[in-house]
């Protein structure tokens, strides 16, 4: 009897805790979403009616997100960076998966640990190291090939891309390698027995098997890139990505437009995250 009561009491405590956890984690996101539609220029309460101004207004005192040229430019920059980072990181990920699962060589374990390095090193350190390294190389290129030859290694689009690939490719490699590990090699051998060459067997049998992990890894790579701040902060030039632009604006204060940007990011990343989650589930089920 005593135990039973104790059990119910602890159950009630657990549920109370679960409710608090939900409030703590989701509450701020819900409030920001509400404020994005609040017709109050102070970006706070009280509620003054529903409006879409913070998304699409173009009057001088109320510039909505879609009419904010700098914000739209940052979105385009972020999308471009994320697309390039994703493609290269996926190619590297597939490459590294084959390297670590299909081959055996001296120093393999050490190299695998080295590959995990970019995830362990703080993003700020990663950013500074790549900045310092590329700065020297860019100066060298300018000296040898004339001024401007090293420009692509100065803060800007390509340096951000390189900096993000350094750690995003680690994640794509791990996700794709985990799937390749579960591949039944006899399937590839069967394809070769039926007359396929080895590259054909890989293309027709192995790569399709990897596709759920590749799609999942691509979405994760895209999100990592789109959202990255710490490394990108040191490497971006005059065309900032969305997080860098938002950060520089937040230092001057909060506007309702930033609420609107957040809501848009929540919706897009939420959908992408959900798709990645579904593919990962499929990946694990196979």
């Amino acid at each position: 009897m005593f135990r039973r009561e104790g059990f119910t009491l602890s159950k009630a405590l657990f549920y109370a805790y679960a409710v608090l956890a939900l409030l703590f984690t989701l509450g701020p996101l819900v409030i920001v979403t509400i404020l994005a539609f609040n017709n109050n220029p102070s970006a706070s309460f009280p509620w003054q009616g529903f409006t879409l101004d913070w998304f699409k207004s173009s009057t001088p005192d109320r510039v909505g997100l879609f009419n904010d040229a700098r914000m739209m430019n940052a979105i385009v920059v972020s999308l471009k960076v994320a697309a390039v980072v994703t493609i290269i990181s996926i190619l590297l990920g597939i490459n590294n998966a084959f390297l670590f699962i299909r081959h055996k060589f001296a120093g393999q374990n050490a190299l695998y640990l080295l590959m995990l390095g970019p995830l362990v090193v703080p993003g700020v350190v990663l950013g500074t190291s790549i900045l310092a390294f590329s700065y020297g190389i860019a100066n060298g290129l300018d000296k040898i090939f004339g001024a401007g030859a090293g420009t692509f290694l100065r803060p800007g689009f390509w340096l951000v891309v390189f900096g993000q690939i350094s750690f995003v490719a680690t994640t794509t490699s791990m996700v794709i390698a985990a799937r390749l590990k579960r591949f039944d090699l006899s399937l590839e051998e069967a394809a070769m027995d039926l007359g396929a060459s080895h590259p054909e067997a890989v293309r027709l049998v192995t790569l399709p098997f990897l596709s759920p992990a590749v799609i999942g890894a691509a979405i994760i790579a895209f999100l990592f890139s789109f959202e990255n701040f710490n490394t990108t902060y040191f490497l971006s030039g005059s065309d900032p990505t969305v997080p860098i632009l938002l950060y520089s604006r937040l230092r001057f204060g909060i506007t309702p437009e930033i609420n609107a940007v957040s809501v848009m990011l929540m919706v897009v990343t939420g959908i992408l995250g959900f798709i990645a989650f579904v593919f990962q589930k499929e990946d694990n089920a196979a």
Partner: protein
Amino acid sequence: MNASSKRRGLWLVLIPMLLWIGLLFVLPHVKLFYLSFVSRRGGEFTLANYLYFFKNPLYRRIFVRTAVFSTLVTLLTLVVSFPLAFIITKVAGKRLKAMLLLAVILPYWVSELIQAFTWMVLLRESGVFSYLLQRLGIIHHPVEFLYHDYTIALGLVYTSLLFMTIPIMNSLDTLDDSLIEAAYDLGANFWSTLREIIIPHAAPGIMVGSIMTFMLNLGNYVTVTLLGGKNSLWFTEIIYNQFIIRFNQNKGSAFSVILLTFSVVFVWIVLKVTKQDLSEAM
């Protein structure tokens, strides 16, 4: 497949990997180490960049503050995450479990910057909390909840909740419920079951979660500067100032090396002491 084509195949996949890890990870860190040991002008060997840090009481204080603060926040995150992980794996029904999982993952998806921003919206002087407390009559003029140490701690717990909760969930998942019931049947109460059965079983997850959380706190920039403002005094800020504002790559490199060395040594010691294997745990 013969041996020589196998060898060719190995080089084919080895070279892209080495180019990537070499050019974007190893060489940049070699350069960082090199820069930290040479003078800004002239480029001869010097320890001045490190001595500059060790001789400056403000920098030393900020470093110690960052390390201690990160440790305390890690413990706090553990205290918040452990019951949550336990509820998700052992108590919640299917629907509550899905909701809680989503609640842990969703803030992570929307990025750290947006997380910090949402707390700014809530906690600033003209923000939501200040407004609500005035409406309720608890305070009578706007109160600034931003730019305090507790704000930084709150923000850091929020951003690292996922990294602590998921590893603990993974280790609790493998704990057989009947073990908990058996402990109860043998007369153990909740606390002794927790101490003798649940926590020892969750230890690897606690370790992994704590290491990840600690590293994220130590290297944090966005949350601490947005929620802490000028009072944040975080070590990553000094690195930024040296590199970007003073354009002193040598001192900046030395500071980066100090941060990197500290975090690697710290994690290595923790792993040695607790006999965990990071590559397995990840």
